[in-house]
């Protein structure tokens, strides 16, 4: 029993390390080869954990090999276009100039219902709104709407840009603790933060989350469990 426990712990850290080495892509949209490796690793990992008669190395070696091989393959696909096309494939255009390419749909074994479902997921309920659509190598549908159907943007309305106001909000206090890196990203000093908190009649430990940008636009969310206060 203790052997299984120790093996489980080692396998846990080994898989965490393997996924870390494989990179963040592994946790998001996966390419076919990445999906295959992830499934294989999860299956292999259970074998030496369950069966102590299997040498532990018999489980470790395939996990390490698959993770390492996946990283090397990713590197090769990054460097070589032909290799990338073989391993990852390329996107397939299924709607061009507003017209569905039925041949491509048949090749991809996607029926009209599947296409409509994917379009609805992209908030397209009328197929005539689509100028161009492609199935990406991850299997996701990318949609480019016709000009008339696109959402209005500031650029279309020729509204001048205000970069300072568009700065993203960065967390500077989280769970009652100051995030020094966040303050530095906002170009703010501790004195400014103390001043704001004093003005808002708050203390650091009573703040659940405080975000701010370079233009000194800030949001404070109080810790309701401590003070029972709102935003």
């Amino acid at each position, binding site marked *: 029993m203790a052997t299984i426990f120790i093996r489980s712990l080692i396998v846990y850290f080994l898989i965490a390390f393997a996924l870390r*080495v*494989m*990179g963040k892509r592994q946790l998001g949209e996966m390419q076919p080869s990445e999906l295959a490796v992830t499934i294989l690793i999860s299956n292999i990992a259970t074998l030496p954990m369950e069966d102590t*008669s*299997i*040498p*532990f*190395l*018999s489980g470790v*070696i395939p996990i*390490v*090999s698959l*993770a*390492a*091989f*996946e*990283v*090397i393959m990713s*590197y090769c696909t990054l460097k070589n276009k032909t290799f990338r096309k073989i391993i990852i494939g390329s996107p397939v255009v299924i709607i061009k100039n507003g017209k569905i390419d039925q041949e491509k749909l048949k090749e991809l074994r996607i029926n009209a219902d599947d296409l409509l479902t994917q379009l609805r997921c992209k908030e397209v309920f009328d197929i005539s709104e689509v100028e161009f659509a492609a199935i990406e190598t991850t299997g996701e549908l990318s949609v480019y709407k016709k000009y008339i159907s696109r959402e209005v943007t500031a650029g279309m309305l020729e509204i001048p840009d205000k970069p300072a106001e568009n700065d993203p909000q960065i967390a500077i206090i989280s769970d009652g603790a100051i995030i020094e890196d966040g303050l530095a990203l906002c170009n703010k000093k501790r004195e400014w933060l103390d001043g704001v908190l004093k003005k808002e009649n708050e203390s650091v430990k009573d703040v659940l989350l405080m975000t701010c940008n370079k233009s000194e636009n800030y949001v404070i969310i109080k810790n309701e469990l401590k003070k029972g206060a709102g935003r």
Partner: protein
Amino acid sequence: MKRVIISICSLALVIGLSCFGIVYMKNACDELCEEIEEIEAAYTEGNVSDAEARIAKLEKEWEEKDKIISKFVRYDRLGEISDTVTQLKILVKNEEKGDFLSQTAKIKKILEDSWAHEKPDIKNIF
């Protein structure tokens, strides 16, 4: 690039371990088979004390090798070797020649099979 280097190092380590496993297994099987043949020769020549001493040596050697082999080889019959080597001592004392030779042949067969099971040939790969 850091990840690629880690991966290449990991693969190199795995390949190194695999090669070590193959070489160690081959050498261990050859050495033990040779040792058994010497025991058989000593016993058939009537040199029982020499045979006993060699069996004790074989037992010790197998214990040492088994510690390493069991780390990377899964072959259920390997466990039988320890039992059979223990039996050899009794068979030598009781002068049961037929049984003794059949047991030594059994150990050699297990060792040969375990090596055949481990070597990366077409049959094992596919």
